[in-house]
C-alpha cells in the first residue's frame, strides 16, 4: 500500500511536469492545466488512502470550505487584480506549508517519538526550514497584497523595517538553536519561532517599494514552492519535493526575468529600499520646472486625425491601462484602425503592470490575438518605422533617460524605444512621475504629444472621432 501511495505521488509529479510543458505554447496551455489538475486529483486520492487516517470529517470540511472560497476567488477576481490574487495564493500556500510542518512536529512530539530516529537532526532542520519559509511567505505576501492594493504605501522608514528584519532574523536563529536542544517547553519555543518568522516576513517586504512588487510577487511564488519542497523533506515525500522544486524554479526564473528587465540585481531590489527614495522628495518639487511649457497637449480629436493617416501603430500598455480597465477600449480603437488598413501591434515591457505577463492577460481578455503582443526585443527594432506610438499609462519603461542620461537613477534599464517612433502620444492622467519618482523626458520631446485623461475615456473618444472622419 505504501509503495502504491508513493507511486501515485510520482504519477502526480510527472503529470505536473507534463502540465507545465503544455504551458510552453498558448495552444496547448489549457490542456496542460487540465493535466496538472488530474495529477492533483490523483495525489489527493492517494493521500486519503494513507493508513494513519482514521477520521475524514475534518478533511472533508476543510476541502469543502477551502474549495468554495477558492472557486469564489477564481470566478470573482477581475483580470486587472490578478497580481493581488497570485500574491494571496502565494501566501496561502506558505501558510499551508507552515501549518503542515508545525502539525507534523506536534504529532511526533505527542507520540513521544522525538528521541527516536524520526527526530534526527536533519528532520528537525527540515521542520525549522519549512516553518521559516512558510511563515515568511505568508506575512510577506500579506504585505505585498496590501502594497499592490495601495493600502500600504512605501515606507519612508525603510531602515527601521530593515532593522526589524535583522532583529527577527536573530530571533529566528536563536529559536532555531533552542528548537534543536528542545529541553523545556518545546511548544513555547515553536510558538516564538513562528512569531519571529512571521515578523521576519513583514520586515523583509515592507521596505521594498511598490514599484518592485513584480519582483517580490515572483520571489514569493518561488518561496511558496520551496516551502512545499521543505514540507516534502519533513514528510519524506519525494512527490512533494519534486513538485515544490518545480514551483520554486518557476518563481526563481520569473524573478530573474523581472530583475533583468529593471537592470537591477536581486539584492538591490530586496535591500536597496524604495526605488529613488533619496531623490523622491526633491524631484517632486522640480517636476513643474522640468515640464514647464514644454509639454504639447492634444485632444482625442487631434489623436484621431493623426491616426487617420497612420499605417503602422504601436500601442504601449502600462499599469495605467489596468487601472482604467481600458483593455476593451484599446481593442475597439485597434479594430477601427485595422479596418482602415493600418497595422497595429502591442509593445509589452517585461515589467509593465504589476506582475510578469500582466498586460498580456489583460489584452487577451479583450480578445487581442497574442501574435500582436510583442515583447521588448522584437518590437524595439520596429519602433523607428512606427508612425504613431500610443503610450497608455506607462511611464518609467518608456523613459529615454534610461538609455541616454548616465546620471539618471534608472540609467541602464532596458526600455521600449517609443521616442524613436515618428510621433509618440502619451495618454496619462497627470504629469505625476512613475514608480521611479523621476520626471520623464519623453513628455517634452519634439515628437511627443500628451493627451491628458483616463486611458479608457481618451480611447473611446478617439474611436468615435475616427468613425466620424
Amino acid at each position, binding site marked *: 500500500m505504501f509503495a502504491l501511495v508513493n507511486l501515485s505521488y510520482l504519477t502526480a509529479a510527472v503529470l*505536473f511536469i507534463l502540465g*507545465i*510543458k503544455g*504551458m510552453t505554447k*498558448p*495552444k496547448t496551455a*489549457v490542456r*496542460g*492545466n487540465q493535466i*496538472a489538475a488530474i495529477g*492533483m486529483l490523483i495525489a*489527493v486520492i*492517494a*493521500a486519503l488512502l*494513507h493508513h494513519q487516517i*482514521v*477520521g*475524514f470529517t*475534518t478533511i472533508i470540511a*476543510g476541502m469543502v*470550505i*477551502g474549495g468554495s472560497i*477558492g472557486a469564489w*476567488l*477564481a470566478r470573482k477576481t477581475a483580470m486587472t487584480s*490578478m497580481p493581488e*490574487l497570485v500574491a494571496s*495564493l*502565494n501566501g*496561502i*500556500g506558505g*501558510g*499551508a506549508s507552515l*501549518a*503542515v510542518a*508545525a*502539525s507534523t512536529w*506536534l504529532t511526533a512530539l*505527542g507520540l513521544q517519538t522525538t528521541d527516536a530516529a524520526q527526530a*534526527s537532526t*536533519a528532520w528537525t532542520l527540515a521542520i525549522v526550514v519549512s516553518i521559516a519559509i512558510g511563515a515568511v511567505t505568508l506575512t510577506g505576501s500579506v504585505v505585498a497584497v496590501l502594497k499592490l492594493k495601495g493600502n500600504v504605501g512605501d515606507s519612508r522608514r525603510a531602515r527601521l523595517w530593515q532593522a526589524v528584519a535583522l532583529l527577527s532574523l536573530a530571533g529566528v536563529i536563536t529559536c532555531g538553536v533552542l528548537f534543536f536542544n528542545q529541553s523545556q517547553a518545546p511548544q513555547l519555543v515553536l510558538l516564538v519561532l513562528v512569531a519571529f518568522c512571521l515578523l521576519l516576513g513583514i520586515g523583509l517586504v515592507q521596505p521594498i517599494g511598490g514599484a518592485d512588487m513584480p519582483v517580490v510577487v515572483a520571489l514569493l*511564488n518561488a518561496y511558496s*514552492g520551496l516551502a*512545499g*519542497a521543505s*514540507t516534502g*523533506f519533513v*514528510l519524506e515525500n519525494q512527490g*512533494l*519535493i519534486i513538485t*515544490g522544486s*518545480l514551483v520554486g*524554479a518557476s518563481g526563481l*526564473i520569473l524573478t530573474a526575468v523581472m530583475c533583468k528587465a529593471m537592470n537591477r540585481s536581486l539584492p538591490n531590489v530586496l535591500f536597496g529600499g524604495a526605488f529613488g527614495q533619496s531623490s523622491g522628495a526633491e524631484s517632486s518639487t522640480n517636476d513643474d520646472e522640468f515640464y514647464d511649457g514644454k509639454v504639447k497637449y492634444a485632444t482625442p480629436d487631434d489623436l484621431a486625425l493623426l491616426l487617420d493617416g497612420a499605417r503602422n501603430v504601436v500601442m504601449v500598455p502600462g499599469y495605467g491601462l489596468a487601472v482604467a480597465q481600458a483593455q476593451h477600449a484599446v481593442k475597439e480603437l485597434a479594430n477601427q484602425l485595422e479596418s482602415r488598413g493600418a497595422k497595429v501591434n502591442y509593445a509589452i515591457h517585461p515589467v509593465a503592470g504589476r506582475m*510578469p505577463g500582466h498586460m*498580456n*492577460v489583460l489584452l*487577451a481578455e479583450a480578445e487581442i*490575438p497574442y501574435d500582436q*503582443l510583442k515583447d521588448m526585443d522584437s518590437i524595439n527594432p520596429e519602433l523607428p518605422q512606427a508612425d504613431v506610438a500610443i503610450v497608455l499609462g506607462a511611464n518609467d519603461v518608456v523613459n529615454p533617460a534610461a538609455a541616454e542620461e548616465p546620471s539618471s537613477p534608472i540609467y541602464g534599464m532596458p526600455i521600449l524605444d517609443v521616442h524613436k517612433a515618428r510621433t509618440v502620444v502619451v495618454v496619462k492622467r497627470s504629469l505625476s512621475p512613475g514608480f521611479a519618482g523621476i520626471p520623464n523626458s519623453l513628455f517634452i520631446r519634439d515628437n511627443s504629444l500628451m493627451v491628458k485623461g483616463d486611458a479608457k475615456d481618451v480611447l473611446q473618444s478617439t474611436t468615435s472621432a475616427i468613425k466620424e472622419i
Partner: protein
Amino acid sequence: MEMLVLSFTIFILALFVGVELINKVPPTLHTPLMSGTNAISGIVIVGAIVSAGTNHLSPTIASILGFIAVTLASINIVAGFMVTDRMLNMFKRKG
C-alpha cells in the same frame, strides 16, 4: 540520513528540470504560469490530509493545524486551477 541525501538529490534534479522547462514558457503566459504553479504548490494538501485525519477522538492543536492546512491548500488548488483555466481560455480564443 540516507533518506535525506536521497531526498536532496531528487530536490536538486527537480530544480534543474524545472529551470529547463520553465525557460521555454513564453512571457505571454507568465501570469497563467504563476497562478498554475500556485495551484500545483497546493500539493502540500497530501501532508495536510494526513495531519488533519490522524487524531479523530479529541481535536488536538496538531489536528486543528491540519484542518487549517487542508482548507488553505484547497483554496490554492481550486482557485489556482480555475483561474488559470479562465485566463488560458482567453488566449485560446484567438490565435
